């Protein structure tokens, strides 16, 4: 997959490198700000309450 992406990026190595960094940043941002916030409430971590009883 990574080889395929690298082959299809246009331009010389330096330009490819910059594009790669942009892609990594995009994917990270998507994960951090969209996917993880959505996913987190569904995971059994960080639950801090007990049932309110009245």
């Amino acid at each position: 997959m990574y080889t395929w992406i690298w082959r299809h990026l246009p331009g010389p190595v330096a330009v490819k490198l910059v594009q790669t960094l942009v892609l990594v940043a995009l994917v990270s941002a998507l994960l951090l700000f969209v996917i993880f916030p959505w996913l987190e409430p569904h995971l059994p971590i960080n639950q801090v309450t007990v049932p309110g009883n009245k």
Partner: protein
Amino acid sequence: MTETTAVAPPPATPERRPARSAGDRVRFVLRGVGQTLITLGLVVLLFVVYEVWITNLFAAREQKKVTQALIKEWQKENALALPGSQDPTVPIGTGLGILYIPRLGRDYHFTIVQGSVIPDDAQLEQGPAHYKNTALPGKVGNFAVAGHRVGKGEPFLNIDKLRSGDAVIVETRSAWYVYRVLGTPAGKNPGSVHEDVKVAAGGTVSLPGREIVDPSAGRVLDPVPDHDGMQPASALMTMTTCHPKFTASHRMIVYSKLVTKVANEAALKMPASVLALYDEVKA
């Protein structure tokens, strides 16, 4: 990452593309599997970064908003909807007081927000959240607050560091309430010491300073914690968080009892007697 590539044969020459042999196809598939596993590993690592760091950034913003709103409210002539004012109903999601814990440092302060009957994720991201149906700060009964242990501002990250007798301070518009973690003698692991707490029927019940309970243990929120149906005679405070860190398997509960109340004459300006509590934990 070498351990992942261990399953793959020695790397083929990736740039040249002659006609594919059977071996090439195997290499192709194995490389795909390896890269997928590495990618998943990186995504999991990134999730850890998100959980312990990024969520704190979001939560800090929420906490700041709610604190500023609270201070503004306190500066009003007729602040409504605050403990100590005429109408004690605090709207959900707004601040009701500020929490200080000397043991956790001079810079430790969090605005406690009004939560639902069970505080939800949005409220807990704002700050430690009050279980709506439990007592308000300083009132006889049980003032119960939930807070995150890891990430989301992590107000209760180091709550396991509290010792018996440690001060837990709650500032409302009307007063500074000083609670102390249950357990005698002071300075011990609160999970191993108990303290007698007065109840309305006369006599006392013995409560620990800290306990680890099942997630379903709503009894810790009772007016007299762990004693269903009993009427309280003391003002107690209960803090709940997750335990162990990062999990949902148990809850850590810390109990404290109101010992002093000092009138709040100037918001955010600690009276000398409250400030002196910080000297107790210098050791």
